């Protein structure tokens, strides 16, 4: 802990300079209208939902327009920001007071700074492109209007999440994206498994929300506030225990939202939603909210090194887990989902390395947003042309029939592999270098940390190369293994319409060039500095050039291996039985079964137990009281014989008893 603080103190002058310059009120100009970024999409969502079937014909175009409007406004704010000196780039704006409870107050306020603007641009640009793509993809769906309403609702919620200036307002966006995700995963809920997948996603995310609430509770108890500024100021003086509690529970929240171990089981099932949903929400934006949370809360993690170490470890585990699962999945969307899980693990690892890694985690988040959504849109295009087939074993040889899809998918593939000069190379390599530069773990000196983290990161890169190449070659190269009339229906693969391919091409351009462009003179990391603090540069234990060479060599070897196995050799149409390990990986390492045992079964047992005790125990007791009084009445009713003489006898007996008592008292 001391060495960590010393390292921190050495780099930065004072703890209150930690989150960059003091926030200023918004200047005039576009930043003052930042609330429109989410108000407009939200209003459009409400309009489309309430408008009903009247808006069916043109509703989706209104949604597309709203999304592009947000993008344009975002660009305007961006330009305004870039024209200002670095220390003036953070704006806050209080929209209204939300909960004025005496000395505790929560306002709904915005924080417009380089970090939030990065996300705004990512969400609005990728979102707008995907909305355009969806016009074509969902063309034949009668509920298209509702789909677009949910999509803009999601965009609004995500923007609230990244623009909030306190954890409570962020929580509003946090649950909002959870709700949108639920509505969109279950969009085709006439199929029961889709509805179950949506429920699973929402309930697992709710577990993360519990973590978020507990973190906020700790903040309120310690600092009487949930604003970023006040929490960051307070945590410097708080005990390490408080900071660790806050950090750990924020990590729980991030794990659920970003599908990190151990709350990762919902992401694979979430692929039940339409492919644009998978591209936007479960690749580029919603799942990155967890990384945003961790990076935004950086100050807390500085003062809670144990929590920060947990972040890195979780990232590491998920990185490998996702890669292993992705290597054995035959469903193209589920393989991409596993890949997303793994790449998010990279980002978490970067975030867990401390100031040396935050900027690169965000950088990778940005580039990943583009190339992963591109890959998903490409998968959607393939599915569209193959009658919604998802099994890669029934693809093959598609490159001749879907040229644009093939080329754009290839761009995404090269980007995710990290082949220079594609964008993934720039972002992923920085994380690997940062992994090799870390020298502490949980606050203590740990020279082994660099080797462990670095090696696993490199291994992950190699595995990524393997499974992504496997996907690419199984789908586009080799011989065609399509279904025919006798086993599933004939397919006639064809390229998709321009309304679908143009967004893919635009995304491909970004996948190719974004990383390189943003790395010139470290433009991006400098851009982020006012928001997250300066990047700590440490020396990697292996020289940078060696890291790059080793990584690249391993990547190329893995890709070549995949080419041989899945491009050149014939791929069996049915998955081979394989050994226990490959079967486990194909079943997501039995994550659902484990969840069933740990969480679902005990809860079901508790539900049944409580219901039984309630019905038979408590209620039975009350009803028993009623039966008791009725029974007592029946017993007493035996004295009502209807015989005069017995009544006379009672009277006589009663008189005798009374006289005896009276006489007894007197004597």
């Amino acid at each position, binding site marked *: 802990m001391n060495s960590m603080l010393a390292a921190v103190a050495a780099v930065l002058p004072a703890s209150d300079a930690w989150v960059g310059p003091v926030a200023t009120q918004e200047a005039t100009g576009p930043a003052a209208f930042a609330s429109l970024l989410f108000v407009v999409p939200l209003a459009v969502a409400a309009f489309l939902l309430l408008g009903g079937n009247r808006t069916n014909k043109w509703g989706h175009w209104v949604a597309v327009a709203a999304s592009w409007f947000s993008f344009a406004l975002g660009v305007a704010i961006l330009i305004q920001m870039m024209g200002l000196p670095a220390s003036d780039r953070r704006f806050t704006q209080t929209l209204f007071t939300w*909960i004025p409870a005496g000395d*505790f107050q929560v306002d709904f306020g915005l924080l417009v700074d380089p970090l939030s603007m990065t996300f705004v641009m990512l969400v609005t640009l990728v979102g707008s492109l995907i909305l355009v793509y969806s016009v074509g993809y969902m063309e034949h769906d009668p509920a298209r209007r509702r789909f677009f309403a949910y999509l803009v609702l999601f965009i609004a919620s995500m923007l609230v999440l990244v623009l909030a200036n306190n954890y409570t307002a962020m929580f509003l966006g946090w649950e909002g994206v959870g709700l949108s995700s639920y509505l969109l995963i279950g969009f085709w809920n*006439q199929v029961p498994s889709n*509805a179950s997948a949506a429920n699973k996603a929402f309930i697992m995310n709710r577990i993360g929300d519990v973590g978020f*609430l507990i973190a906020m*509770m700790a903040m309120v*108890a310690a600092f009487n506030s949930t604003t970023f500024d006040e929490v960051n100021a307070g945590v410097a003086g708080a005990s390490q225990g408080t900071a660790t509690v806050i950090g750990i529970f924020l990590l729980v929240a991030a794990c659920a939202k970003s599908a990190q171990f151990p709350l990762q089981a919902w992401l694979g099932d979430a692929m039940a939603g339409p492919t644009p949903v998978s591209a936007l929400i479960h690749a580029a934006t919603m799942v990155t909210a967890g990384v945003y949370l961790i990076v935004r809360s950086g100050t807390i993690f500085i003062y809670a090194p144990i929590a920060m170490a947990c972040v890195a470890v979780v990232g590491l585990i998920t990185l490998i887990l996702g890669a292993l699962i992705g290597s054995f999945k035959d469903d193209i969307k589920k393989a991409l989902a596993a890949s997303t899980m793994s790449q998010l693990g990279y980002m978490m690892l970067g975030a867990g390395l401390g100031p040396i890694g935050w900027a690169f985690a965000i950088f990778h988040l940005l580039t990943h947003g583009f190339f992963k959504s591109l890959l998903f849109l490409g998968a959607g295009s393939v599915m569209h042309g193959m009658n919604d087939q998802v099994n890669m074993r029934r693809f093959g040889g598609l490159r001749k029939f879907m040229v644009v899809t093939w080329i754009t998918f290839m761009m995404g593939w090269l980007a995710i592999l990290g082949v220079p000069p594609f964008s993934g190379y720039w972002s992923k390599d920085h994380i690997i270098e940062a992994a090799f530069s870390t020298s502490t773990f949980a606050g203590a000196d740990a020279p082994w940390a660099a080797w462990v983290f670095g090696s696993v990161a490199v291994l992950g890169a190699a595995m990524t190369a393997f499974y992504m190449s496997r996907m690419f070659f199984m789908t586009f190269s080799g011989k065609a293994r399509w279904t025919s009339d006798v086993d599933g229906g004939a397919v006639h693969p064809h390229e998709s319409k321009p309304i679908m391919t143009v967004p893919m091409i635009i995304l491909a351009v970004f996948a190719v060039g974004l990383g390189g462009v943003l790395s010139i003179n470290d433009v991006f990391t400098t851009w982020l500095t006012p928001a997250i603090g300066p990047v700590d540069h440490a020396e990697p234990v292996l020289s940078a050039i060696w890291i790059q060479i080793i990584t690249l060599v391993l990547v190329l070897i893995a890709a070549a291996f995949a080419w041989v196995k899945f491009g050149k050799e014939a791929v069996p149409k049915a998955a081979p039985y394989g050994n226990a390990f490959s079967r486990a990986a194909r079943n997501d390492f039995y994550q659902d079964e484990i969840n069933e045992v740990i969480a679902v079964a005990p809860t079901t047992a508790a539900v049944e137990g409580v219901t039984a005790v309630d019905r038979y125990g408590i209620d039975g007791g*009350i009803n028993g009281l009623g039966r008791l009084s009725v029974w007592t009445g029946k017993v007493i009713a035996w004295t009502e014989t209807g015989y005069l003489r017995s009544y006379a006898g009672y009277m006589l007996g009663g008189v005798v008893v009374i006289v005896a008592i009276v006489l007894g008292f007197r004597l």
Partner: protein
Amino acid sequence: MESLNLIPAATQMFASAVATPSTGPWLTLLVVLPALVALVIWLVPAARAKGRIIALSASVLELIAFVVIAFTFDWAASSTTQLLESYEWIPPLGITWSLGVNALGLVMLLLTGLLVPLVLIAAKNEDDDEVRGGGYAALIMALYAFIVIIFASYDLVLFYIAFEAMLIPVFFMISRYGTGENRRRAAMKFLLYSLAGGLVMLGGIVVIGALGMGGTSTLFRYDFLQQTLPALSVGWQMAIFLPLFIAFAIKAPMVPVHTWLPDTAAEARPGTSTLLVGILDKIGTYGMIIMAVSFLPGATAMVRPTILVLAVISIIWGGLAANGQKDLMRLVSFTSVSHFGFIVLGIFIGSDLALTGAMFYMVAHGLSIAALFLISGFLVQRGGSAQISSYGGLQRVTPVLAGTWLFAGLASIALPGLSGFVPEYMVLMGTYKVSVPLALFAVTGVVLAAMYILLPYQKMFTGPINPQRAGLADLDGREKLVVSPLIVGMVVLGIWSAPLVGSLQQISENLEPNITFVSETAPEVTGSPAQGIISPSSTADLNEGNAQ
């Protein structure tokens, strides 16, 4: 035997410093109007057939009156009782006819004023003939009169009389107009359970009467009780507190005296359940705030740990039991048990933040549970069955019904942006400040809540369409009229919650010394007695001995 007569005269005389109505017996009129309407409908045969319309007009008038009062109310002095009127009724017993509202009472009256017309409009579904419908409307009006008395009451015996009297119309509403087969049994169970609680409560009132008999003609008026009860020894406070609390716990309902609610909700009409859970149950927690926290801080401090544990048990028990129900109405009623656990937790935890949250919760829960019951009722009326498993795939058959049900459900599970989030957030934050373990247990209720709304939604509204249900009609215009104000209310309260929070916060801060009271000895008699929810304000004299 300690007697209130022995308390020094300085505190025995209530400070005659209460706000009086500047103009007239408005609250009494607002009590008389529904009662009169009920009598007219019952006694005048011609009015019987038009009963619903007459009752609806009267309740809308009443709502407008409440809104007018809300506009003339001084919100900056939210914790003082305004519009106070007080007349001597039974001087030898110290009972007066006193009515007055502070912010909490007024907000509950506004909630009632909103829900009664909606229930009356929705009731048209159930009545084949208007004469029967008229009878039901008259019962609602009678109930309305008693509810107004309860929330506006400024005298404990008046409160008690209305508390018991309101059981009569509800009994008939369940037994004669209920929809289930076991409605008579459920009505009897409800009646006996509540009467038992009332009997116990009477014991507490008798204790107060015995302590103060003959001392003053306003013995049971809140201001007098506020001055004197906190100064009693803890033993006497307990003798008063426990009977009152048991009655309120039955009303609330809290585990383990909650089992009357699911039976009643399953057998009664949805409108009846709406009023029962949306308003009548709030009387329990309203009473807890006034009687327990405000009047009897010493006893509260002693019993607090037990109550808090029971509250957290209610949260979790209600959530688990709701998940295990197969009947839709029973499920919704168990969710109420869970919500009331949160409210009681917020009241007794000892944090003004949580207390404000609990009071806000009462309003927010009223809206969301009303929406859930009414919409579920619409579904059950169409489908003829309340079994969740008998429906399927209805989102494509009745999209508006599905959407509004989901909306109401999300509001009740504290989705941020809707009415349920702010109060639950405040209660949790306040609880954590005082007790970390209780907060951790309570927050798990959030996951259970997601399950008990989404799993029934999945069973009823998603999946393949059940062919028997393919012909169900969606919500018609009248039903949308019923649901719209509730939905608007849920959204408005979720975002624009600041005015209500600020107003209720004043009450909580006024009660701060009471809820953080930990000493086991009564406060000094000569010092300032703990401030209460019924605090005097201006210095106008009281209208006493006025036989109007």
